[in-house]
């Protein structure tokens, strides 16, 4: 295979462990102009975090596209209202671009709130709103006053940074809700689950683990979320934050204002899930039975999935995987989870990792693993071929590329259909990987009469 030239400025965003000497990633960078980046924008980040709040109104203030593309594309499940699955847009036209969109935003909000009586409203600013200079916050304040519900501006203009900045904007909006609810009936052994969006029902599973441990879950932020739960979140004793990026901002803010400590957790893979549960248990040393309940839970759950996992491992032993997903934290978990089913990670990368993340990733990987930050499709396909991967784990844009190359694929972003978190999720994940890696379709490539 012909090697492709790399963008010169990108050399530092790629690390080929076998080749280069020192390890120093230049990440946290804006994508280069002219790159075929797989990254998204600030608005995308905010939306991912806030949309699972199902009894809130989500209004996208901007031209139609930003709203149309994000209409119910993320499988954040709700057990109750489905308002978050509708698409509301101010659908700005030329007139507003010239004269401003504030009156239109005001009208839209009033109409929607009158119709749906939501518990709160989030208003997402898109790029153009940032340029035409609408005072979205002022309109929100006015509507909040008139309608008597919180109306929160989300400053998610796409050009104002990366997806991470969108997480932060979302956290700012959430933080203004936290602390406004009644917390009298909250137990001492209680937590909030942060950064869990209930894709495929994952939040339900995790919540249930904690409840079996005897821990009260005050609020899941934001999977299957409700405004009233968010308002009460400051009543919890501990914040358990999943993933590196999305909701650490909120945890930091809550620590500062309410003195609630936070710990990190990953629910992906058996090791990490067990670790998360034990960490939470350890936080409540005064609760007499918690340690034991947790041990029992872990033992039972692991015993339930291990036999089948072992079986799957038999088929997958020695196969190679390429992992390229949004957050770096997820990459760590995937590396471990793949190892559990006998696979080796030959390429690892993320859209949004920082320097520490990449150092950690390097430590987790084999010496010859390629590490990439914000990769383009040419780089991805080049390394996947060079490293002879059998499986690609990525998002919507990577799937057809993997298939074209004739390798298996597993979606670990928001298009996944089954819960991949927790113990049960590990089994789903293993089955999905097994199904695709061992599919007969890859052998159909050549004509074999």
């Amino acid at each position: 295979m012909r090697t492709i030239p790399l963008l010169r400025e990108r050399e530092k965003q790629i690390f080929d462990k076998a080749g280069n000497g020192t390890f120093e990633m230049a990440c946290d960078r804006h994508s280069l102009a002219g790159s075929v980046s797989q990254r998204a924008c600030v608005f995308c980040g905010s939306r991912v975090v806030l949309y699972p709040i199902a009894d809130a109104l989500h209004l996208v203030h901007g031209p139609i596209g930003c709203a149309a593309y994000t209409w119910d594309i993320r499988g954040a499940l709700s057990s109750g209202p489905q308002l978050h699955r509708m698409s509301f847009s101010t659908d700005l036209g030329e007139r507003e671009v010239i004269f401003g969109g504030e009156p239109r935003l005001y009208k839209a909000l009033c109409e929607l709130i009158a119709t749906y009586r939501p518990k709160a409203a989030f208003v997402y600013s898109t790029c153009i709103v940032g340029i035409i200079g609408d005072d979205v916050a002022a309109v929100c304040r006015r509507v909040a006053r008139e309608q008597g519900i919180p109306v929160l501006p989300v400053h998610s203009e796409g050009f104002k940074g990366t997806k991470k900045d969108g997480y932060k904007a979302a956290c700012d909006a959430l933080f203004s809700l936290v602390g406004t609810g009644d917390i009298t009936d909250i137990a001492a052994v209680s937590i909030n689950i942060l950064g869990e969006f209930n894709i495929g029902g994952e939040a339900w599973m995790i919540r249930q683990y904690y409840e079996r441990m005897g821990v009260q879950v005050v609020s899941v932020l934001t999977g299957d979320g409700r405004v009233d739960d968010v308002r009460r979140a400051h009543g919890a004793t501990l914040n358990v934050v999943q993933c590196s990026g999305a909701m650490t901002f909120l945890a930091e803010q809550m620590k500062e204002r309410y003195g609630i400590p936070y710990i990190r957790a990953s629910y992906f893979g058996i090791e990490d899930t067990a670790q998360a549960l034990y960490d939470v248990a350890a936080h409540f040393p005064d609760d007499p039975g918690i340690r034991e309940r947790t041990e029992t839970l872990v033992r039972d759950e692991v015993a339930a999935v291990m036999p089948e996992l072992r079986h799957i491992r038999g088929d997958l032993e020695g196969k190679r995987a390429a992992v390229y997903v949004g957050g770096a934290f997820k990459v760590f978990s995937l590396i471990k989870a793949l190892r559990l089913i006998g696979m080796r990670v030959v390429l690892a990368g993320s859209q949004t990792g920082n320097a520490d993340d990449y150092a950690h990733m390097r430590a987790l990987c084999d010496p010859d693993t390629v590490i990439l930050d914000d990769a383009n499709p040419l780089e991805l396909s080049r390394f996947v071929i060079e490293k002879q991967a059998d499986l690609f784990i990525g998002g919507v844009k990577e799937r057809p590329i993997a298939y074209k190359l004739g390798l298996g694929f597993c979606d670990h972003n928001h298009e996944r259909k089954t819960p991949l978190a927790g113990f049960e999720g590990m089994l789903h994940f293993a089955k999905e990987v097994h199904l695709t890696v061992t599919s007969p379709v890859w052998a159909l490539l050549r004509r074999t009469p």
Partner: protein
Amino acid sequence: MLLRHTNAEIKERKALTVNPAKTCQPIGAMYAALGVHGCLPHSHGSQGCYAYHRSTLTRHYKEPVMAATSAFTEGASVFGGQANLLQAIDNIFTVYEPEVIAVHTTCLSETIGDDIPQIVNKAKADGKIPEGKYVFHANTPSYIGSHVTGFANMTKAMVDYFAESGPRSRTVNLIPGFVEPADMAEIRRLATGMGVASILFPDTARVLNGPLTGKYRMFPEGGVTIDQLRQSGTSIGTIALGVMASAPAGLAMDSKCKVPCKVLNLPIGLHDTDLFVDTLRRMAGVNVPETIDLERGQLVDAISDWHPYLHGKRVGLVGDPDQLLALSRFLIALDMRPVYLVTGSPAGKKFEESLRDTLSDMGDDLRIAVPGDMYLFHQWIKDRPVDLLMGNTYMKYIARDDDIPFVRCGFPILDRMGHSYFPTVGYRGALRLLEKMLDALLDRKERDSSDIEFELVL
């Protein structure tokens, strides 16, 4: 009850679109640009828009969709995106090596007011565009029009930039409109079957429905070449299919290179395919071969076989303007009743009039919204249901909630296969549409019929 939030009471909404029946210009421009051979579409704006456009096209085609972005930062949004675009052009030609870059704007760069031709000229002057390679552009502000407008603008840009006059050839230009790769191939097949040499643009066949080969090609086989686009200026005529998507390019060709242009409906259904075939026959001075008459005859035969099951069925459609017009005519020919029609595209009074003219027999039952959204459409359905729904994937919420048979057509289709491989244009395409509609209607009939009514032979 996913759409339990649809309110039955219809109020006029002025400032608000709920559940849109359109999307923004750049995605149409990106799709059109992918129909040029070796072309990398480039989105001049911030990187979110283009990530969404690529994802949506990927979900619809299940194919890699390549495009680049100027990746605007705050600086660019204050000082303009010239530096970003210059750097982008340089990077793209160095790293990805396309033949052509097709730049489209976004809301952001439009509002800032970047002058793309001036920037492209500067790139040329600075030697950033290698010999024999090209950069062309279309302005696609999304706060005007819809994805169809973007497609039309990019297609017109192909003419504006490349078509050259010259001694007349015997070739006919075919502008297929915002249709699927399979449709584009079918339009060409009909022309070839009639012995007409044609230049079809844009042409996404074999770009967005390519084979699995074990290799990843950033620039697949298909697409109209720049040479062909150049020669299109010497053709004997142009057939532009679809007033909204194709007429601007066809008319631009006429005024730039004096190539006479006929604007027709999309060749969906019997009459509009007849019209296309007949126009092509006259323009190229050929006869219609028996093979095509055979296809037509088979279609009429199938309609006659099944017409009792189609008669009087009330149909609700959401789609793009060109599709709505042609589909309405087809449904009428089938003795069906297209009664509710919504497009998100602001297609104008004239379009609405021609739609109303076509459907004048529907009387009081007729409801049309140009532009409207799916929410409004759903309110109509709640008011009085129909027998069949036709529209893109987003219509499945309505189909489910109100338990109505549903045929997917249009853009985007995110949850079924077929549109990449089987055309809906031409006589063959009409047969396929007929099959899909009958399947939906008859499956429902059998599901709902009692044991006594349930029959083996239909």
